């Protein structure tokens, strides 16, 4: 025989204050976990979504990130550019872009002392390969001029980098002539200009940073990866664009570790609190338990009933926690990409996965907190229960 759920609900409603406080305690715990998870989820999504499925990034072996890689113009022209398997641009040129990557520092809204940003210099192929870009304001930069275009995240987060403003880096000032948008989140945090102009400013001679290559198809991509990795004249690391960005997201890991650690300690605390509440519920209803037993409810149904009640508390807590972090969904923030020290803007994502994990977490807290009191209730002798209180 089952004790109806409405019995639990009514009891929770009667002890409103306690119910709310306990659930909210669980909720805050869940919120910490969910917030740290949505941060990493957002970060991972930003990076994962940033790769073109057929594009490869070539860097000098061991350099790990574009910023620390060097590829010279000569080796690009001689060894990489005209490989078979590279897709053709509209112009007929191979879809291979030699790029220069630096970090620059601009004051942002969040850190007025300055945040690092990725600054990328590209050549005409580079512009052609960025079909995903749409100029939301202004226009592309002109080659031969000290002009840059900035990603929409840069424009919105860095007051100095708006359209028409000049920013200082390298050897002088650069005019922002356009704001672009792209579905690839990581690219939205870049400041892009003419690579040749930038080479001079950064005294790089003819040393670029990396090469972006688009393969004709999957098969060609595999072949290109193999042949470029094996290339003796140039020691290269060949990564798909996706792999590359995914690696960059590892700086979020620390935050996730810390978040999880904090959430687990808080969870034990909330579990004790839930236990307290449930023990109080059992004590208060001692007589009722006796009566229910006299009416013929079994120990098992008493156990189940109290256990369910603590699970309801947990569900309330989980929902409260998710409601607390939901406003964070879509919130844009920045994090330094691993190894480049440059900031990448991304949005926190309360994904279904985050929600599910948080809910399960809440239920575990509820179960752990409710089990002992429920056993205690079920173990009560009928007569002592009736006599109690």
């Amino acid at each position, binding site marked *: 025989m089952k004790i109806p759920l409405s019995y639990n609900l009514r009891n929770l409603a009667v002890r409103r*204050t*306690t119910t709310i*406080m*306990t659930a*909210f*305690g669980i909720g*805050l*715990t869940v*919120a*910490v976990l969910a*917030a740290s998870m949505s941060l990493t989820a957002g970060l991972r999504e930003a990076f994962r979504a940033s790769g073109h499925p057929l594009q490869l990034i070539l860097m*000098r072996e*061991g*350099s*790990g990130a574009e*910023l*620390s890689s*060097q590829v010279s113009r000569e080796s690009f022209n001689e060894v990489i550019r005209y490989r078979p398997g590279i897709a053709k641009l509209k112009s007929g040129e191979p879809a291979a872009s030699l790029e220069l990557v*630096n*970090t*620059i*520092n601009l004051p942002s809204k*969040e*850190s007025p002392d*300055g*945040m*690092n940003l990725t600054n990328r210099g590209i050549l005409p192929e580079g512009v052609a390969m960025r079909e995903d870009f749409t100029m939301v304001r202004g226009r592309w930069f002109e080659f031969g001029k000290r002009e840059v275009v900035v990603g929409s995240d840069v424009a919105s987060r860095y007051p100095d980098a708006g359209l028409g403003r000049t920013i200082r*880096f390298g*050897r002088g000032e650069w005019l922002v002539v356009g704001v672009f948008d792209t579905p690839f989140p990581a690219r939205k945090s870049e400041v892009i200009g003419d690579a040749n102009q930038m080479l001079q400013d*950064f*005294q790089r*001679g003819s040393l670029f940073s990396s090469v972006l290559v688009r393969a004709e198809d999957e098969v060609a991509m595999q072949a290109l990866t193999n042949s470029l990795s094996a290339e003796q004249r140039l020691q290269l690391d060949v990564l798909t664009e996706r792999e590359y960005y995914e690696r960059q997201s*590892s*700086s979020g890991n*620390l*935050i996730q570790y810390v*978040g999880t650690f*904090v959430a687990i*300690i*808080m969870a*034990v*605390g*909330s579990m*004790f*609190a839930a*236990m*307290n*509440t449930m*023990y*109080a519920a059992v004590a*208060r209803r001692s007589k009722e338990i006796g009566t229910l037993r006299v009416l013929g409810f079994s120990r098992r149904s008493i156990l189940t009933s109290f256990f369910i009640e603590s699970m309801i508390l947990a569900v309330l807590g989980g929902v409260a926690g998710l409601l607390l972090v939901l406003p964070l969904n879509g919130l844009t*923030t*920045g*994090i*330094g*990409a*691993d190894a*480049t*020290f*440059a900031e990448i803007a991304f949005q926190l994502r309360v994904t279904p996965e985050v929600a599910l994990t948080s809910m399960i977490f809440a239920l575990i807290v509820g179960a752990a907190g409710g089990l002992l009191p429920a056993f205690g209730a079920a173990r009560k002798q009928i007569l002592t229960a009736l006599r109690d209180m």
Partner: protein
Amino acid sequence: MRFLPLIFKNALRNRRRSFLTISSLALSICLLGVLTALYAALFHSSPPPGQELRLVTRHKVSITNVMPTWYKERIRAVPGVKEVIIWQWFGGWYKTEERDRQYFFPRMAAEADRLFAVYPEWEIPEDQKRAFQADQTGCIVGADLAKAQGFKIGDRINIRGSFFPVNLELTVRGIYHSPHESDSLWFQFKYLEQGFESLGWPNFAGTFTMLAESPEAIPGIIRAVDAMFANAEAPTKTETEYAFGLSFLAFLGNVKMILLSICGAVTFTILLVAANTMAMSVRERVREVGVLKTLGFTQEKILGILLGESMAISLIGAGIGLVMAQGLCVMLRQAPPIVQQTKTLTIEPAVLAILIGVSLLLGVASCIVPAWSAARTSILDALRFTD
């Protein structure tokens, strides 16, 4: 206070509940303690002796941008600067190219002739010092690093370049002890310069590390150096070595905000847990409040007794939690440091005082509502009260 025994007995009235509440509070306050200690260490600490006189100048943009080497002589001429050297982060890979913590340690190039003048607190035998300075491919390692990796004098260490495509073949010439940092490897900047030459790169410096003559000279040096290069090709940022270490944290995002919001959530959770317990515990006792009033206790006294009880519970929880927090701090010191500041993590007296204050405040806040309403209940209503 005459009512202390009553307060304590009341606090422990329901053993299980008190145990659960105190455990819950202890855990939360432990967490709060560690987070606050971390916050204090990162944002409110002062450099340890030996370090407070050291400054670092880097490119204004980031340490990955470089400056011309001739800056050094200009910096040396700034009043208050005692000594300055070029200091270059090398990075690279040792043994493996994976991001393997086991083989990760800081590797720096520095000008060997002046290195020890800038790091006067290091202890290293004179003969080792000279052997290092005499050998272009020599290196010295910190005592902790030597222990961790098993390096001995005369060992060969090969580092593959990453950021700089230069492979190093080093020989250990000395082992130094430093009071705050003994886990780095230092080799000669000249050796790196040779590598740059063979690559056809111009000479450049990643950072300049300098020693100030006195603490009073520091603000002046910072202003003078940065002003000197403000309009040069590479504008600079000068800060104390201690603060410089912290700038690496920035890549974790807004650490300050993250720490503060977690602290907020934890504090609020404590408040809820404590408030819940106190509400239950006061409710159970409304009748007794009636009895106390019959015996002549005033509202204020009763309020005091109930608040005292709640504060006692918070204090016990805080005491246990802070001891645990100190333990955790000691453990965190062993963890691989991101910044030097965490290596001496501890609950400072100021943090201790703040947290005890906070827990007392939480004790009052969690109890004030039920206690106030219980104390104000009329005698007869209180005596009639059934839960």
